[in-house]
């Protein structure tokens, strides 16, 4: 019982972060209200989101008080269960198709997205694996085996198809490998190669307008349209074009809550403006001030994760915190980046803001893990 109160004391110590998370989630409800109030089919969305937040914080607290090393120890089993669920979404009887993708699993009364839970169990499993490989951490095999662990869920999720969600696993993998202490160039070289390829693609396709061998014309078009959405403003360039107009027309102060014409009049597609394209709603209605505040808040959460990693009692804790940080970072950067034309449009939500039960619960649970690392950190154990 004394332990519990000590843990509670640590939690209170980090209460600004808890309040920040709460504030983000509540802000999210308001944005979702604005994005859905003209849509009768979604009029329950804000209330549902509130329920998810409550469930999410329940997970948050539960995990915060659970010693993370316990979870890491059972993580191989959790990982395997997750893989089974990821296969399950393709099995008739369990599968539950939404928007043409097999992302949902029906287990009795509960419908959930295993891909989101996979992110959590994957982070735990990676921490376990890297701890196990501690003695051979500099070996190339460590990297290759970690990649193998990553590729399996990636392939299964991409097959749903949910490329956006699937692609989150690689950044987590690289960040955890890097922090675990692999040779730096095992991580930097692939990233550098990818960056050089992207830049080359920009010049080759967009600036010089050259074709890529073995690529089909429609694929070429997609690349071209990413670099210049005005090539197809009504078609595949529609979302980015409208997103840029929405954010741009917000200006410094924004048009006011529920006053964004792009949002209310449906130029931001109604079926994504409350989840994946929620940032333009913020940008349009709350202006640069609101958008920047959101970015800074999300950034603060990320930095806190890193802070926790630095103060972690052990390597496992640090790895878990870094894994969670990277997962959230990828979502924040890609989600906001795609709406302001930094990265291609991909279907991934914005942590704590976007509508969606599974993802919100997973994000809060992940923060619960980080909280657990904080609560169980070295100083506390010594005390």
């Amino acid at each position, binding site marked *: 019982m004394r332990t519990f109160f000590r843990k509670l004391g640590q939690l209170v110590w980090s209460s600004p972060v808890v309040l920040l998370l709460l504030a983000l989630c509540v802000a999210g409800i308001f944005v979702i209200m604005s994005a859905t109030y003209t849509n009768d089919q979604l009029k329950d969305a804000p209330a549902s989101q509130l329920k998810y937040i409550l469930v999410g914080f329940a997970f948050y607290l539960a995990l915060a008080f659970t010693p993370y090393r316990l979870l890491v120890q059972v993580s191989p089993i959790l990982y395997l269960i997750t893989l089974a669920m990821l296969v399950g979404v393709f099995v008739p009887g369990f599968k539950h198709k939404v928007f043409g993708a097999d992302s949902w699993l029906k287990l009795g009364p509960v419908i959930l997205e295993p891909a989101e839970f996979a992110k959590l169990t994957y982070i735990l499993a990676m921490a376990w694996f890297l701890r196990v490989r501690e003695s051979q951490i500099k070996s190339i095999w460590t990297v290759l085996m970690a990649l193998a662990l990553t590729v399996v869920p990636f392939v299964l999720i991409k097959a749903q198809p949910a490329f956006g969600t699937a692609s989150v696993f690689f950044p987590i993998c690289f960040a955890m490998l890097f*922090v675990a202490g692999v040779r730096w160039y095992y991580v930097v070289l692939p990233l550098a190669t990818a960056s050089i390829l992207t830049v080359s693609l920009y010049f080759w396709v967009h600036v010089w307008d050259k074709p890529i061998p073995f690529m089909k014309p429609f694929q070429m078009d997609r690349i071209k349209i990413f670099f210049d959405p005005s090539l197809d403003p009504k078609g595949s360039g529609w979302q980015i074009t409208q997103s840029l107009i929405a954010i741009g027309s917000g200006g410094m102060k924004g048009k006011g809550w529920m006053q964004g014409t792009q949002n209310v009049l449906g130029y931001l597609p109604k079926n994504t403006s409350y989840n994946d394209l929620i940032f333009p709603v913020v940008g349009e209605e709350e202006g640069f001030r609101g958008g920047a505040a959101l970015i800074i808040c999300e950034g603060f959460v990320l930095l806190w994760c890193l802070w926790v990693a630095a103060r972690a009692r052990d390597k496992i804790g640090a790895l878990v915190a870094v894994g969670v940080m990277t997962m959230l970072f990828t979502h924040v950067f890609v989600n906001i980046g795609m709406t302001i034309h930094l990265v291609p449009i991909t279907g991934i939500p914005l942590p704590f803001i976007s509508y969606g039960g599974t993802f919100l619960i997973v994000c809060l649970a992940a923060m619960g893990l980080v909280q657990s690392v904080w609560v169980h950190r070295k100083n506390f154990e010594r005390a």
Partner: protein
Amino acid sequence: MLADDFRVEGWRLGILALLVFAAMGTLLNRLWNVEIVNSDSARQQSEAQTTVRSRIAPARGAICDRYGVMLAENRPSFDIDFYLDDLRRDYAESHHGIVPTLPLPNDKNGHKRSEPDIVEIVKQSIAPIRDMLGLTAPLNEKEIREHFRTDRDLPYHYMTDLDFATVANFEERNLGVTGISISQVPARHYTYGALAAHILGYVGKPFNQTEHLASDGTPYETIGRDGIEAIMDERLQGEPGSSFKRVSSQGYTIPDPTLKALDIDPTMGNTLYLTIDARAQYIAETAMRNAGVGRGAVVVMDPRNGDVLAMVSIPSYDPNKFIPKITAKDFDALNQDPTKPLFNRALHALNPGSTYKIMVALAGLKSGNVDVNTPFDCPGAIQIDDHLFHNSDRTDAGTMSLVHAICVSSDVFFYQYGIKAGIDAIDAMGQRAGFGHKWGLLGEANEDAGILPGPEWMKEKEDWLRKTHNIDHWSKAQTANTSIGQGFVLVTPLQLATFLCAVANGGTVYQPRLYSHFVDYNGTTKYELPAAQVYSTLDVKPSDLKAVQEGMREVIQSDEGTGTRAQVPGYTMAGKTGTAQAYIRMDGSVKQDLKTWFYCYGPFEAPRYVCCVLVEGGSWGGTTSAPIAQEIMRRLFALDTGAVENVAYLQPAQGNFNGVTDVETHLPAPGTPGAPATADNGSPLDNPDAPSSTPMPDLPPIGNPASSTKRAH
């Protein structure tokens, strides 16, 4: 258990922290660029795609008479508009997204294409209200499909100018079918029907989407098609206004009060003030109708400044028939009517007959070749060149001088007088008087210049004259013929009235004026046309002019005069009769169609009015036209003493060919040498050079309805 004290290397976390900072910085920087730097263009794009501008039609400027009596104004017209895209969407929503389609030609890749069958959708959409409201106007399928393809955001006007019963029915039952609404637009209304129809003209829809665009690049609802409406169209048009609505990405419009500030009210066009006096116009119109005139014209002017007070052409039409759109049947009827109701006879040139003698008299006096007292022997007929020229009554009148010759309108006198004066003097005076010249009151296109014939003119028309008349030089006989207003001479009623103004006012030829100014919607006067613009002077000695005036006074006031029927008790007037021989082809034969003139001014001592009456198919200027002029002058004088003239809505004057008489079959066809011409009271039948009533090739014979066909829509 994995419990251990392994720690991660701090620098690796540091690099991640830097990455997070860099990434957040990148996002913030990019957000700044998108939201602050490019804000204006994004805002414009946003406004452009979320607002739709609807045009508010401007009202056309009114046209009123010199005292502000409205002759053409605007009334509300109710239209049923279809918003085709709304109809389609509504149909789709109530039919589970299924709409009837029509196949289109395959695209270039051979894929099948189709478009919504909008006509079918419209038919089904209006079916419930169609019977209730009696909307029987057939759907123009081609027009609807074309409108749907090109302007589906703009309303399609299905029916225009609904009656009030239908409008009330529609509103009362609140037949709120999405995409069908009633809109109110200004429509032209001519207050007094056919009154001054030929001056006002009419308006019509634009022929296409590019004709005469307003300042916002959209075509005006109506465009002036004839008369003053046409030539002053630009100044009469108003400025369209606009109102803005929000439009969703699905195309639904959403009211947004914040856009109210952007709305622009339409401004009405300038009000045009004519010089016409509606009462004078009404007097002239009714005088012609009372006399049963089937074809003719009246021009009333103010000799003190050249203002046109009335200008009538008979037969006429009701310009309201053209609003909002004349039916094909009505338009064909107007165009195929052989009496040509659309044609403005006040601006059409004809032989002036003896009215021309006044100008010839002044020409002779000015030339100095003759004077007021120069006597001429006036037998029943005289020999000129190889031809015998008869006086109209073929009796010997003895010797007479100018004043008496005007009074009795002696042809034999004026044959000799004209020859003595010389054709050059006649032409010079004619030019001063404005004959052979278009006054351009209603645009040059619809006005004849007339002909001031002479050696010069003959040279210009040499080829044509040789071919049609077999003459190649100017002869004394032609001068003689010209002197009595026959032969090649052609003048318009307006020219004669303008000339008579100069005679009445002591010799100043004023530029005739039909409008004085415009007043814009603020009440500011614009585009003023000053009164009493001098065109030229007759430049004859006052004593000579007095003599001519005296002759004209005797025409009316003396018992011997030819125009005694124009006498108005209590007033002294001066005038001159004229009867020009003319022929038309009708029903395959040549018939006589006399042009009988009378023009006068009064009161003699201080002239205020000049009146010129032309009747086609009359019998004699003194008996047909003088009484009409008498009625007009009498009622005009009465106005000045306080009588009230109640101007009322006028039905169109019907045309006829009464007074056209058969002629002996041995007469040569008009337009050939030897065709007959008459002087005032008769006809020098052996006159060699008299042309028919249609001497110019561009004046086609009656019976060809295309001749004065005007476009109307």
